[in-house]
Every structure is written in C-alpha cells, then in structure tokens.
C-alpha cells in the first residue's frame, strides 16, 4: 500500500477518535447545563433560561458539525484515492507556506492590536486589566524566543 495512504489512514483514524471524544464532551456539557441546579445559579430565571437555551443550541450545532466531519472521514477511509488526495492537501508545500505566512501576519497584527488595547484599557478601564494584557504579550514574546531557539537547532527544511 502507498505510504501516503497508510499515513493518512492513521491520521484520520486518530482524528476520528478525537472527534468522538469531543462529541462525548460536548454532550456531557450539554447535559450538565440542562440541570435545574445550573439554571438556579443565574441571577434571574429568564437569564438562566436564556443561557441554557443558548448552550443547548451551541451543543446541537457542534454535534451536527462533528458528526458531518466523522461521516466525511469514514467515507474517506474506504477510498484510497481520496486518502492520497487528502494527504497531498495536508502536505502541500504551497499551502503550508501560505498557512505560515497567514499565522505570522495574524500574530503581528494581533500583538500590535493587543498592545494598543492595553493602553486604552489602562486609561479607561483598569490598570490591572492592562497589566494582564501586557503579561500575556510578554509570555507570547518568551514563547517566540524559545520556539526560535528550538527551530534553529532542529529545523531541516523537510
């Protein structure tokens, strides 16, 4: 069997397990939210009903989406040609480069936006909130430095 097909089969099987786990988690959360004791935590009955309805709606939407993904994955597992094509899509060099560029742009834009937001928050909301945004930005900077050192040592271009 083609190596690509074998790898993709493994990936999709793992993905299906994760999807099944996610479906269980989502439904468990939905069931917890249906309990009257959770609704009673809200300030008013109307608020509790609204949150309960909203969460149930989100759970149903997520269930539909996750089941559709599962069905698509199971169908792909039966078709080797589809699996090979999925593998190519996942490992397409142009797609990987575009993804990296998009991530880089989003990170830069997000960082600048968060920095500006921290100034606005410091002036109009609270200094503590602004400090937490700056803290999050500092953690991001540290993670970037660590990642850079790691990839400098390990990146082979393959």
């Amino acid at each position, binding site marked *: 069997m083609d190596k690509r097909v074998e790898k993709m089969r493994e990936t999709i099987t793992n993905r299906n397990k994760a999807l099944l786990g996610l479906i269980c988690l989502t439904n468990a959360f939905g069931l917890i939210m249906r309990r009257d004791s959770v609704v009673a935590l809200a300030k008013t009955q109307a608020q509790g009903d609204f949150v309960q309805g909203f969460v149930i709606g989100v759970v149903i939407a997520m269930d539909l989406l996750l089941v559709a993904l599962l069905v698509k994955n199971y169908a792909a597992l039966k078709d080797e040609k589809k699996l090979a*094509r999925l*593998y*190519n899509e996942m490992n*397409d060099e142009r*797609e990987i480069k575009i993804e990296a560029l998009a991530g880089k742009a989003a990170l830069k834009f997000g960082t600048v936006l968060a920095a500006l937001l921290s100034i606005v928050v410091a002036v109009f909301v609270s200094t503590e909130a602004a400090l937490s945004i700056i803290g999050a930005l500092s953690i991001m900077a540290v993670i970037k430095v660590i990642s850079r050192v790691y990839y400098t040592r390990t990146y082979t271009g393959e």
Partner: protein
Amino acid sequence: MKNNIKELRKANKLSQSELADIVGTTRQTITSIEVGKYTASLVLAYKIAHHFNLTIEEVFDFENLEDED
C-alpha cells in the same frame, strides 16, 4: 518562474489533478506553478522533471531568475 509544465502535461495527456496526484501536491499548486505565480521547491521541481524524464533545467527556466529577486 517560467516553465513548460503545461506543454509537457498536454503532450503526455495529463490533467493538472493527475500530475498533482503523481508528484504529491494539489491541483492549485500545479496551476500556480504553471502560470508562474509560485516557485516550486527543489524537491517538487525534481519530482515534476523526473516524471517527464527530464532535468530540472529542461522544465524550468532559470535565465531570468535574478530579475525576480
């Protein structure tokens, strides 16, 4: 970067999807390479050239490479 993948593909009666499947990429990437919007990596260029039993230089035009930088 200019190349003659389209001509080679047509001469070999291959669609973009078929060539993409053979060299392990997507149809969109083959399209982008053909129209010169994307420069293939060395590995992908080798795979394409190898499929047509040609060298990389015979498939890709490196003459105007410095102008593209």
